[in-house]
């Protein structure tokens, strides 16, 4: 089963308006998933990670509901049928 990436509204314009996109199930980690996503929707990944490949400070990435900050970051494993959810952090003023 492919891996699903759920996008917040702010990033959907950079994915052709899609709320979800899928990538190949052979991606083993979140880093692989974002790398595959960058090949199709680089504008999405630019906004999730900075140019050094770090997830931006106020962006959270979840794998099947778990925040990768508390797992292995971009090395967090994904499985067939996993859902990777990108969410803007609760921050601002």
């Amino acid at each position, binding site marked *: 089963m492919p891996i699903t990436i759920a996008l917040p509204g*702010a*990033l959907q*314009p*950079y994915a052709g308006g899609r709320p979800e996109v899928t990538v190949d199930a052979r991606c083993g980690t979140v880093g692989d998933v974002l790398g595959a996503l960058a090949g199709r929707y*680089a*504008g999405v990944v*630019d*906004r*999730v990670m*900075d*140019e*050094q*490949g*770090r997830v*931006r400070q*106020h*962006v959270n990435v979840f794998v099947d509901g778990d925040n990768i900050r508390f797992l292995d970051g971009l090395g967090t494993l994904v499985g067939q049928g996993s859902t990777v959810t990108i969410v*803007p*952090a609760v*921050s*601002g003023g």
Partner: protein
Amino acid sequence: MPADRSASPSEGDVVLLVGTMKGAFLFSSDGGRGEWRIDGPYFRGMAVYAMAMDQRGGRRRILAGSQSMHWGAVVQSSDDFGATWSAPDRQNVRFPEDSGLALTNVWQLRPGRADEPDTVYCGVEPAALFQSRDAGETWSPVDGLLNHEHRPRWQPGGGGLCLHTIVLDPANPERMGVAISTGGFYRTDDGGRSWRARNVGVRAEFLPDKHPEFGQCVHKVVNHPSRPERLFLQNHWGLYRSDDWGDSWVDIANGVPSDFGFAMEMHPNDPDTVYIVPIDSDQFRIVPDARLRVYRTRDAGASWQALEGGLPQQDAYECVLRDALATDGHATAGFYFGTRSGKLFGSADEGETWREISGALPPIVCVKAAVIGAGTANS
């Protein structure tokens, strides 16, 4: 991307580009500058620290650096006064991977010289200079500054480690200067390949050595195109002038209530006339005596006079930041400034009298002004 509202100013009208912590606004008026129309906000919720009007090469292009707390920063442009924006798909100002750096914010957008109409410069945080050769579509770093040997010793100021000021020599394409907080003033004489710290005479109150080669917290530098070698500098404590492109600086804080401040602007038609907004101290950061006063020198810093007509002179706990003071370049120069409390003031008579243009904007971090059709971009 369509904006919420858009202006349609005509030749001779004056436009103000106002960047705030919550988006950008455009104000427009006829040459009388008595009534103003407000348009926007553009980039809702994003901080806009840098804007510029580029009227070279037949353009009417507004440039803006928009920073999302979540999604990063990009440079956007509009050729129709905000009706549509370029909304680049990719982050168009990017550090090279091998630099180890990542863009935090865009602090300055500066159209290049008149004879290089497609060149635009961009100052960013962390401190670096980028240039565009296609009028702001694509950007590349200026390697000579990116790889400067002083970089590891630059320290962030209160606003971050930012390159916030770019001054050009209009006659010499090889020469320009930049200011970094905190790094000081740097000048290139070879088109950006090499940069030398130029801070002799500028003090650094916050360091044990008050006169280091570099490390000063420069807040703003301005020069006039008719006399580009003469620079005026508002420091984090200190008000200075250089008559030799920064090789040496002299103190010109003659009669100001405080030599601390952020904003500084050149008169568009007189190389001896400069405007500042003194601030009480680096702790309080409020105008002295809670009186909102612009100060002007007409003799290159030998003396300064307060301009307070129409400005609140009681309980005005205001601060004007480094890029929030601008002139429009009109024959009778207009001046404008915005405060951290979101008030926008303007003067159509060179600062003699002021009126509030808008009183409840988000915190203002950037004000730029231009006369439509004037052909040049004003700082």
